[in-house]
């Protein structure tokens, strides 16, 4: 059997549209918070009764957290001022329903756990989570994809700001129920990752109890390729970027494997970290970064990288170990590093590069890296970036990476070890009764394909449209629009072709709220515009306009200023006597009737100008 080019699994975190998991609070996000309760989180002893030294050092550094409450969606339980209540039954039913739709094997008795996390994102210092089912599966394009586990857990608090030794969190998000579903590493192409995510998303939405909108669903991707390493891309929010993340990560790992081969062929050995203070050498440099650092009482420090020339940035930008090193360096709070493959550049002229090479006694196969910052920071940044360079000799490091909006990723931290999990003694175990399982089985919602069939038979749209609508979880919206406007064919075209076009233009049509879209169809129904105008209107709305404003903007083009001028002239004529007595002062009182007649088709400023013109014309 030939080796798979890609081994990939995903984990989806989906917020549920119920009350919070362990209290009676609403699960909405708020724009404001009040209060700022100060807390510290202390590392607890490990299984062997010993403290994690690094965590203790962190604690002793006085790092503290402040927590903001929000009206209606925080209570004493969120603040860790009272024990968790019983688990929310709606959330539990939803995760059981979902698990059953994946044909998972239910855990007989459910035990909530404390997953330790003392970064402040949980007031308790742990996230409550329970395994609900294992061994499920879904079918995507005729292939079976395994589901390793389905868990029910609490979402974390939102970080508002970090300053000095304090981080401010808002508690509105804390405790919102999340379904966490993890697939087996069964995906083999970037497109398949997207298909699996879409399928899981569609099944989640089919439960009718999940939240929608940006931030309510988050994906983690686990990727490795032959000779590569397991890398986790954590917290992707935009579904359409998933294939890009996978593709780019595959390319990145292939590139790192190529670098490894080059370094091994050269016999490059790990570089010793011998920092050289070269501040003096750069004292007259015109580079902004270097000048700034020196003025700030910082230093310029260089480290030799023997045998690394050409892989930091080489082969026309295809080899990019330097940017990997820079990402590590930035985690230590420096703006960046410079390496020999990218110099001269950034205001560092050739003479400086040459004299530095001479000073460091480098051969043509050797590289160097420099950092200009406060000494301690610079040394720290150089240490991690040289360690990163050295790892390239071994291959691809295991990492957690952050997804970026351009489809690439950035180093975030090393892969975490096994989570420390302890029993949540405040929540009693929950035996899954036969009766509950029966009730859920008897009330399973329609599967996506069943919804498709219904859309075809009830609304007369074609199967391909129905498939696309359901796959993108727009079926409820489609039904609402069709029922409200009586125009299912138009609705289907909009939610498929038009939305796809907008996505190709890098717009997000799903950002148009359901209410806005329904409002737009109301206006259509009232003949405020013709259906041919829908794509342009939706384009406006995807950019942030509401339905009325979009119609107004577009209506103007349709009406034309001549037509508006005619209408205004007629209105002026009707009120000739009033205008003659008032002169230009008549503009104010007349604006009302004019805007009423032209509402949505012309903006106020233009109406004002046209009215002034018409009056001047009348009174000479």
């Amino acid at each position, binding site marked *: 059997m030939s080796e798979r080019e890609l081994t990939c699994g995903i984990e989806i975190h989906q917020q549920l549209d119920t009350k919070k998991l362990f209290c009676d609070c609403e699960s909405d996000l708020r724009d404001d918070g009040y209060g700022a*309760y*100060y*807390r*510290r*989180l*202390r*590392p*607890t*002893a*490990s*299984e*062997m*009764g010993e*403290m994690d030294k690094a965590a*203790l050092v962190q*604690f*002793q550094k006085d790092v*503290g957290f402040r927590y903001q409450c929000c009206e209606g969606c925080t209570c*004493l339980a969120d*603040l*860790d*001022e*009272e*024990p968790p209540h019983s688990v929310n039954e709606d959330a539990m039913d939803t995760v059981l329903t979902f698990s059953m739709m994946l044909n998972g*094997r239910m*855990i*007989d*008795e*459910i*035990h909530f*756990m*404390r*997953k*330790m996390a*003392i970064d402040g994102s949980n*007031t*308790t*210092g*742990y996230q409550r*989570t*329970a*395994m609900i089912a*294992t*061994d499920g599966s879904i079918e995507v394009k005729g292939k079976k994809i395994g589901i390793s*586990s389905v*868990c029910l857990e609490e979402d974390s608090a939102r970080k508002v700001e970090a300053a000095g030794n304090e981080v401010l969190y808002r508690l509105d998000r804390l405790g919102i129920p999340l379904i966490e579903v993890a697939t087996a590493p069964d995906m083999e192409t970037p497109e398949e990752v997207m298909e699996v995510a879409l399928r899981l998303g569609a099944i989640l939405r089919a439960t009718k109890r999940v939240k929608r909108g940006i931030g309510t669903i988050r994906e983690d991707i686990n990727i490795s390729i032959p000779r590569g390493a397991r890398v986790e891309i954590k917290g992707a929010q935009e579904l359409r970027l998933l294939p890009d993340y996978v593709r780019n990560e595959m390319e990145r790992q292939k590139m790192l494997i190529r670098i490894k081969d080059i370094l091994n062929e050269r016999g490059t050995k790990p570089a010793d970290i011998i920092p050289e203070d070269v501040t003096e050498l750069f004292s007259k440099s015109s580079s902004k970064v270097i000048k700034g650092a020196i003025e700030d009482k910082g230093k310029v420090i260089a480290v030799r990288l023997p045998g690394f020339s050409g892989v930091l940035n080489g082969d026309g930008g295809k080899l990019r170990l330097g940017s990997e090193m820079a990402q590590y360096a930035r985690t230590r709070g420096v703006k960046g590093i410079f390496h020999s493959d990218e110099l001269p550049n950034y205001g560092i002229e050739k003479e400086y590069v040459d004299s530095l090479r001479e000073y460091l006694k480098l051969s043509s196969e050797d590289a160097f890296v420099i950092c200009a910052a406060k000494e301690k920071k610079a040394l720290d940044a150089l240490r991690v970036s040289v360690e990163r360079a050295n790892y390239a000799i071994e291959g691809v490091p295991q990492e957690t990476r952050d997804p970026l909006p351009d489809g690439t990723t950035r180093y975030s931290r090393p892969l975490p070890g*096994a*989570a*420390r*999990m*302890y*029993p949540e*003694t405040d929540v*009693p*175990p929950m*035996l899954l009764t036969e009766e509950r399982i029966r009730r859920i089985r008897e009330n399973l919602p329609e599967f996506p394909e069943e919804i498709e069939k219904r859309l075809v038979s009830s609304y007369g749209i074609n199967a391909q449209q129905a498939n696309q609508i359901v796959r993108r979880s727009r079926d409820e919206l489609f039904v609402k629009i069709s029922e409200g406007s009586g125009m299912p064919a138009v609705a289907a075209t909009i939610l498929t072709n038009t939305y796809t076009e907008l996505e190709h233009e890098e717009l997000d049509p799903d950002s148009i709220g359901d209410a806005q879209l329904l409002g737009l169809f109301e206006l259509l129904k009232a003949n405020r515009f013709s259906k041919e105008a829908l794509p342009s209107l939706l384009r406006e709305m995807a950019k942030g306009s509401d339905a009325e404003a979009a119609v107004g903007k577009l209506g103007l083009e349709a009406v034309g200023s001549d037509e508006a001028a005619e209408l205004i002239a007629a209105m002026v004529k009707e009120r000739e006597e009033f205008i003659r007595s008032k002169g230009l002062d008549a503009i104010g009182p007349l604006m009302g009737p004019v805007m009423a007649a032209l509402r949505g088709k012309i903006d106020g400023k233009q109406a004002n100008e046209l009215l002034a013109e018409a009056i001047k014309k009348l009174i000479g």
Partner: protein
Amino acid sequence: MSYSVSLSKLLESIGAKEGSNLSVSSKDKTYIGRLMPHHDFSDGDILVIKLSSGYNVGIRIYPDSEVKVLEHSAPALKKEVAFERKEGRPNIVFIGTGGTIASGADYRTGAVRPALSASEMIALVPGITDIANISAKAMLSLFSENMNVEHWQELAKAVAEEINGGADAVMVLHGTDTMGYTAAALSFMLGDVPKPVVLVGAQRSPDRPSSDAPSNLTAAVRFCINGGAAGVFVVMHDTLGDDSFAVHTGTRVRKMHTSRRDAFESINASPIAFLDEEGTIRFTREKRAAASGKAAARTDMERSTVLLQYYPGMDPSLFEEIMMKSKGIVIAGSGLGHVSESMIPLIKKACGSGSVVVVTSQCLGGRTNLNVYNTGRDMLAAGAISVLDMLPETAYVKLMWVLANSKDAEEAKRLMMTPLAGEMGDRRTVDV
């Protein structure tokens, strides 16, 4: 619920113990993980194991299920750490009595253990051994609802012994439910103790990263070292934040919330001092200065004492036997200290038989006054006494102590109306 008979037999026959690595095959699925303790609320046929992912799952064991031991558990390693003692540093003794502050999950097995070891108690406070010589003793391991009068007596003796043995301060780690009662008992038993005796509790157990135990203990240690005050105190959170702490007089303090960190409040008096996160101490009134000298524990208590809460519809016939059997009766009356007219003949009868009837108010805030209304005057005429603004619980503890330490009811009544440990006052300002 414990394991069903068949499941316990099965586990015994294969030699499975908590922590053993098991393979459990039930209904076409095999789970591998460590055996966890059986939860009280777990079903009898459910086996709880910890999977390698860290999750605990409960698996139903059927007659045809298969359970095998893959590996027996290794005994937990527990080291008792010895702490260095240095001349010139204050000597502080921790006495552990149990409670939330001294409890936590055993992370290896998941079981909740009742008490911390001595070195675990010290480890709760980072850096504490740099500023003081701390020794810790785990005396009891009780949740405080199980504390009784004998425990107070034992504790008072232990505290006096530590002070007489050279301790500059004693800290009692205590469950919060009845910490107010214990604080009052120690206050009367230890009288003019020359050193600080500080009770500290926690509303979140120390096995949680958010526990208030470390910060409460730190504040208490700082108060012991830098406060220079003698007496019995309670130190707990003053607000919900881990940055403000209140020092309460032992006879004035009451748990006023079931779960908040700032559950403890001084009633009818302000806390004697506050501490901030840096340890700055702000006294609100004059303290009794710590001094050298011996401590004496006068621990006799009259056990035949009761605390009754008056309620509308209280039937005297139900309480006659109790009241006539008791030498001391504290009534938490309504409002200024009232009971219904129907209770007054019984009070009169009890007083007539030589019992001491003490009236407090279930309002908690404010002082009693039996002169204002007819009912009150009738209660006084029946022989009851009222004790200003003393808390009902404090009055109950004090009455036990007073009855055991006076020769007759008259002396006991006089002592009840005399402040002995800051437990009562006749001046309340608008801000407390």
